[in-house]
Every structure is written in structure tokens, then in C-alpha cells.
């Protein structure tokens, strides 16, 4: 996957991460993708070296009284792949706006 073109889903997720949505929940909410798609895709991106994952420091999570999150971060290779994908998917940037803060859970599907 590292060498081939990114699929639209992958590119969208990468763009979301790049725009500051740094963990599974946010990515899901901003892209509207299902959890069963997002998590395997994150693992795939990580295997391909396009993103890196890091656990949040426990202190921060404790302060906010929630379980610690796993944050994902786009690597240099990821940014290159994304730049390439933006050439093909022109609307990509607009579909995942810059993160401004906390997101509301998206309209839940039944």
C-alpha cells in the first residue's frame, strides 16, 4: 500500500488527521466513516508508515476524567502521499475542515 495510490477513504482519513483530528472518534465524526472502517484503516496507514500512533499521557486523560486516547500523527511519507492524493481528489481539503475543538458525536446511524 505504501507505494500504490491512496484510496479515497485512506486519503480522506489522512486529510482529517492532517487537519488536526487526531484520534479514532474525531476521524470518524468528521469523515462520517464507520468505526469498522476507520480502525482497520488506521492500522493499515500505520503499517504503511504513513501515520504514527502514540498514547496520550495518562495525566492528561485523568485530568479530563476519561480513558487515555491513542493519538495518530501523519508522518513525512504520509504527507507526501496526501499531497499526491489531493491532486486526484480536489475536494479533499474541504471535506475535512481544520479542527477547531471538540466535536459532537455525528448523527448516529441506527
Amino acid at each position, binding site marked *: 500500500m505504501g507505494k500504490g495510490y491512496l484510496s479515497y477513504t485512506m486519503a480522506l482519513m489522512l486529510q482529517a488527521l492532517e487537519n488536526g483530528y487526531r*484520534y479514532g*472518534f474525531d476521524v470518524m465524526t468528521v469523515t462520517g466513516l464507520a*468505526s469498522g472502517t476507520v*480502525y482497520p484503516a488506521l492500522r493499515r496507514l500505520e503499517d504503511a508508515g504513513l501515520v504514527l500512533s502514540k498514547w496520550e499521557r495518562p495525566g492528561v486523560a485523568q485530568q479530563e476524567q*476519561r*480513558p487515555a486516547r491513542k493519538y495518530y500523527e501523519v508522518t513525512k511519507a504520509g504527507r507526501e502521499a496526501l499531497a499526491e492524493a489531493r491532486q486526484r481528489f480536489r475536494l479533499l481539503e474541504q471535506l475535512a475542515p481544520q479542527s477547531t475543538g471538540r466535536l459532537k*458525536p455525528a448523527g448516529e446511524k441506527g
Partner: protein
Amino acid sequence: MRGRRGATHQRPWLRLITLVGVLVPCRLRADWRQEWEAELRYRETLLEEWDRLNGRTKLALLWHSLGALMDALWLQPRRWEDEMFQDLRYGVRMLLKNPGFTAVVVATLALGIGANAALFSVVNGVLLNPLPYPQPEQLITLHQSKPNFETGAIPYPNFQDWQKENQTFSAMAISRGSDFSLIGTGEAERVGGRWVSADFFSVLGVKPALGRSFAPGEDERGAGPVVLISADLWQRKFGVAPDVLGKSLTLDDKSYTIVGVLPASFNLVRGADVYLPIGQWNTPALRNRSAGLGLHGIGRLKPGVTLAQAQADLDRVMRNLAAAYPDANRGHGASLIPLKERMVGDVRLILWMLLGAVGFVLAVACVNVSNLLLARSTGRTREFAIRAALGAGQWRLLRQLLTESMLLALAGGGLGLLLAALGTRAALGVLPTALPRADEVGLDGRVLLFTFTISLLTGMLSGLAPALKTSPWRLSETLKEGGRGAGGGRHRAQGVLVAVEMALALVLLVGAGLMIRSLSALWQVDPGFRPDDVLTFGLSFPPSMRTASPEAVRVALRELSDQLNSMPGVRAASFSAGAAPLQGEDDLFFWLDGQPKPASTSEMNMALVYRVEPGYLTALGIPLKQGRFFTNQDDERTQPVVVIDEVLARKYFPHADPLGQRIHLGGDRDPLQIVGVVGHVKQWSLDSDDKALLQAQLYEPFRQLSGSPSGVGVMMRAEGVAGKAGAVPPALFDSIRRVVQSQHSQNVIFRPQTMNEVIADSLTRQRFSMILLDAFAAVALLLASVGLYGVISYLVGQRTHELGIRLALGAQRQDVLRLVLSRGMKMALSGVALGLVAALGLTRLLAKLLYGVSTTDPATFTVIALLLAAVALLACFVPAWRATKVDPLVALRHE
């Protein structure tokens, strides 16, 4: 918050995560759970904060948690990787814990796999790989078939007609081997060469590495003298100098301009260093339709043309030629053989047979390793029982065992490949002429793939028996019994494996035994001459000899012959032209005096012809049966005489005394009188001479021949020439050289061989297959006896307790000895019986390779069976003897 966390177990989505988490590989599980719990809890918290945690959103949460299932499933391959890695690591650790065991197994497998890889690389290089020319399947060798000879030479005028009139070949060339004296670059040297027609190289598709090939028309008489040289000669004589083109090379008495250098990879003709256009060959016989001159053709089929079509085409051409020139061509035909078939056809059967035999060696190695693993797995029963009790599934345990045997097999395979790479070169070096295309043998992709595949198969097969013996119900019994149970079935399996091993070894031994018998029968064949103390060499004369007067040539030759004959230690020496036993063939047509001259050569009689001096009979030790042999008085001034062999005498004078009869050799020569009959000499080979179509032999006195030879062979009986298989002593060769060069410094002697070497060379293929088969059989015997020894030792070890009780209860030492021996011999003898049956069926495949011994030779079968039984008895005796030394007290305490 706290309350919510405490209620984790009530939340179905979180419970689902816990459940699905079981699927995730252990290494990742904690991480994975935490990430998903964080996800779902955060989502839940947000929904709560917005006060929207209702039935619908709860369902949505559950839906999200189902995504975890997808995620977990996606991670499945990693579980495999993980466990495989664990198995591997564990396997390596277990193997390193028992370095002795591991070394024995790896060495056994390396031997088996290495022998197979080596032989397969030979089969691959010689039989499977295409010839190194473009579209090699289009290349066909061409011969003219004669009543006596399927693949005879093609007279040059006939060839030219084939070339012109055929419709199925895109091109056709002809060639003939010849030796030349290379003069002018250092000491005169004899080099191998070839007369070729101009398109010889273009038919093959070979382009010179340097310079050009022959141009069309350059092979006609009167064209400029040019030569192509081999890469080897280029290196040897010119140091790979690029300016070699245009230089001249003096071959015999003529100077040739070098126009090209052939690539180093060109190896169609062994030992040929110079290639000359055939038009430069100054012999009138080239225009004679009855003279074959050893010319053979090669052609390239037009695309899409089959061999049968080409055959029909040349048959048609040959019919026309027979009609046009009946005296030369009637009864002759065209014989077409694909080049590859011509090159490797003789060794195909031998190589496949050897590959089959070496497969047996691998099977023995495999069974041996299987047995060792089985014994070891018995020792590890407790380990497996504990692993099973801790939750390892049967499949997992099986995989562990298979992983270990695979590791062993791959290590064995790697080492085996190394052995093969070194061994193949060494083996081909010992008998370089045994195989065609020997220099094309090497390790390539196909050999690597073959080795890898047999390694995997070996690993799988040898690991299977022990793996299957380790089943869970046996394991639980083991735990209950404290480690001594589960033995019976395993012992039975070991017994069967040992018997199989013995049987395989026996088949190989019988095969090897038959080959040895066959070869010794061949050595015992009377060649018709006494080879001990006989040596032979080539002698070439300086170009000046060719321009000398016939009288001067005679004087020079006689002088040289006298000098050779009067050398100290030399009992007799003789020039020899024409045919030479087991070395070179030459024949002539004749008819009996008093009969009308036949209309065509195919209606004439044919005989092998030896043109020799009076010393020949003594030199070779051929018995005189009747009359006399030549004397020094049989020369150009006296009546022409011949001596015939007993085969010719029987065939053409069945009811009359051949002495005094006369025969005609054609041309304008007077009839020759038969003055003697000598014993028949094996000309073709020791084994096939009896079946050859052409056996009759005729001797002409060298001194009654006219003309000036460029070289002759010499046969010499001298003291101090080594007996069987020894080479010509260098001191003797040096003194011969001194004598020869004292007459003329440009006399060259070359290719010295003892007659025993000549015989040995004629048996190279049989020796090659015998040596390999013997080696395989020896390895199989060694492995099988080590296997038997191992199993019996192991059984004795296992039954120490029982033996102790027997001894304590009053059993005698010899009872114990008998008990153990009978146990071992039962396995061995059932193996021998099984092997005898298998060998009876399989040796039939050897039929074509054997000489003078039947494929079911009772003596061989009996001796081999006894040998194997004796070795088995020895292998059992050592552990059995040890068993009698068991101290009952120690044995009873041995728990």
C-alpha cells in the same frame, strides 16, 4: 464518572469489546482494548453530556462496538505471524539445547539433500536446460546412413546437393574435426581444430566475441586463408590482445589470417581451438562422392517444420542422388538427429537412473531423521503433555513439531546446497569426459527451487510421524503415568521406519552391486589385445615432409620407426594409421578376387582398416592365428599383402582357407594377397563390439602405402609402462620426445595414453554411474545402520527397568542378549525381505546399463542381503551387549 466506570460490565458495547478482544493477538490485545474502550466511553460520555443517551443512540453505540469486530478480524494475520514466530523461536531454542542431536540430524539431511541437489544440478544442466543457442530445438545433426552405419559421414559433393535441393532447412553446414601443428608461436604445438563450411556459425546462431565470422563463399577452394580461433587460444597464445585480428597463424604448412575470436561460452566442440573454412582443406577426396571423410552436418529447420517433414525432404533428395550416382549412393539415406539428442542421448538413461537412486538416499535420510525425531518426541512427551494441559491445542503442538523439523530440513538444505556446489565441481573434475555439456552444470534458479522444495518436503515428511504420534489422549495418559507410557505405538512406528530404511538401503546396495558386477565383467572382457605395458601417442610431422620426395618420406619414416623400436626398454613399436582400437574408426570397401566388381559401394563388403607396421602385433599383443604377419620386406617394391582378422575370415571364407586368397580394394590398385589371420580386436567398445554391424578387420602394411602423412599414431610396448589405470611415465614420454625430435625439431608428439587408460576412458560412463551408485549405496547403508543402532539403543534404554526385573527374576545374560538381538533383527530382516522384493522389481530399470550380469543376479542379491543382515547384526549387537551389563539393582532403582 466513578459510578459509570463501575458499571462497565453492564454496558453491552463494552462487554462486546471484551469478548471480541479474545480474537486479537495477545501481543496487541491490551492496547487494542484500551483504544476501543476509550473510543466508546468517550462517545458515551459526550452523548450523556448532551443528554442524548437514549435507546436509539445506545443502539448506535452497540453498532460502533461491532466495528471492533472488523478491526479484530483485520488483525488476524498477525496472530499467525506471532505464533509462527513463537514456534520458530521455541524451535530454535529446543534445537540449540540438544546440539548433538541437531548436528546429527542436520548432517544427515545435508547429505541427503546435498546429494540430490548435486545430481539434480547435473540433470538440469545436461538434460533439462536448452542448448545455449537461439531456437535450439531447430538444430538438427545430419548424417548419411549406410548399410553398416546409421550415422555415417556425408561425402562433400552430396552435402552440397543437400544444401541446394532441400526445402525444409533455412541453412545447413558441415564440419569435421582435425588436428593441426601450430608453428611459430613458441614450440610447435598440436591444437585441435575443425574444418567448417562458411555458415557453420550462422546456423548455430553463434556470433564471434571479436571480429567476424566466415563470409559466404569463403569456404570455396581458392578463397583467402582465414581462421577463427577459440577464446581459450586467444588467451593462451595472444594474452587476450584486442589486436589479434589480422595477425597470422601458421597451421601445418600454411599461414592463416585471424578474422575472429569465438565467445568463451562456445563449447560445442570439446578441445577445438581453430576453425578453418573447408575449402582450405587440400584433399582431392573432397570431390569424391564415395568419401565420407568424417564430415557431419548440422542444419537449422525452417520455423514450423517438423523433424519428420525434414526427414521426408532429405529422403527425397537422397533418392535423386542415388538415381544420379548409383555407384556411390545406392542404398544410402539421410539420417537426422536433433542436436540435443545427439549430444545427451547416451547419458539420459544413466542420469535419470542416478537421480532415482539418489532419491532413495534422501528417503533413507528422511526416515532416519523421522526416527530420531520420534525418539526425541518420546523424550519430550511430558513437555507436550504440560503444554496441552495449559491449553495448547493439538494443532498448535503439531505445528511446533513440524516447525522444528522444517527448521532442521532448511538448515540441512542450506548446508546440502553448499556441499552440492562444492561436490558437483569435484565430481565432474574426476571424470571430465563422462558427461556432455559438463561445463554448463551449475546452480541456477531451478536447482535452488528444487533444493528448497525437497527440503520443505523432507521437513514435512520426517516431521509427520512423530507429530502424529503426539496426540492429546496419549498425552493425558502420559501425565498420569509419570512419563513412561505411550511407548508401544511409538516403538512399533520406529520398527516400521527402520524396516523401511533397511529396505531402501538394500535396493540401493543391490543396484550398486549389480553395477560393480557389470563393470568387473567389462574389465574382464578380453579386448583382443594385451593392454598392459602398451602406450599410444600421436605424432605429427613438419610441413617440409609434405613437399619432400616419396623416397625421402619413406626413408625418414623408416628411420624414425627404427629409432623408436631400438629405444631401451621398448619391445616393439609401430606406426598406426586408419582405425585404432577403442580410439578411432576407419573403414574401406573391398570385394573378393574372382567375383565381379559390384556396381555400387553399398553392394561391396566393408571392413575396418588398420594400416600398421610389422611391430604392431607384438606391440599390442594380438595373437596370430594363421599364416604370418607383415615383415620389413613387405614394402613398396614387393607384392601387396593384407592380414585379416578371424571375423573377416569366418564371414567371407567360411569354407575355404583364406591364406593365399586375394581381395580388391578398388581404385587402380592391384589385388592384395591375404598372408595371415589374426585375432579379433574390440574396436567399438568392450560391451557393444559383439553387436556392432561392422566387425570385420583388415590390416594393410604401412610401408606399402603411398603418399606423405601429416601425422600418424604410434603403438608401443615398453617396459615400465604402468599396469592398470596408471598414466604414461613422464620420463618415458620425455625420452620418446627426445628421440622423435632428434630426427626433426618440428616433430610433435601428443596425447600420450596407456592402453589401459584408453580402456578406462571407454568405460567412463559405466565408471561414472558405478562410482556414484556406490557412493549413494554406502551413504544409505551407513544411515540405515546408524538408524538401526539408534533405535535399538533407545529401546534398550527404555526397557532398562524391564530388563532389570528379568535379570532379577533369574533370566540369564544370554537370554537378554537374545531378546534384544531378536527384536532388532526382526526389524532388520523384515526390511531386508521387503527390500529384496522391491529390488527385484526395480533393478529391471538398470537392464540397459548392465553388461554380463542379469538384473536378478542371484549371487548379488544373496551377498547384499547377507551383507545387510551382518551390518544389522553388528548394529544391534552393541546395544544388546550393553543390555546384558544392566545391573538389576540399578535398573530397579531407575525410575
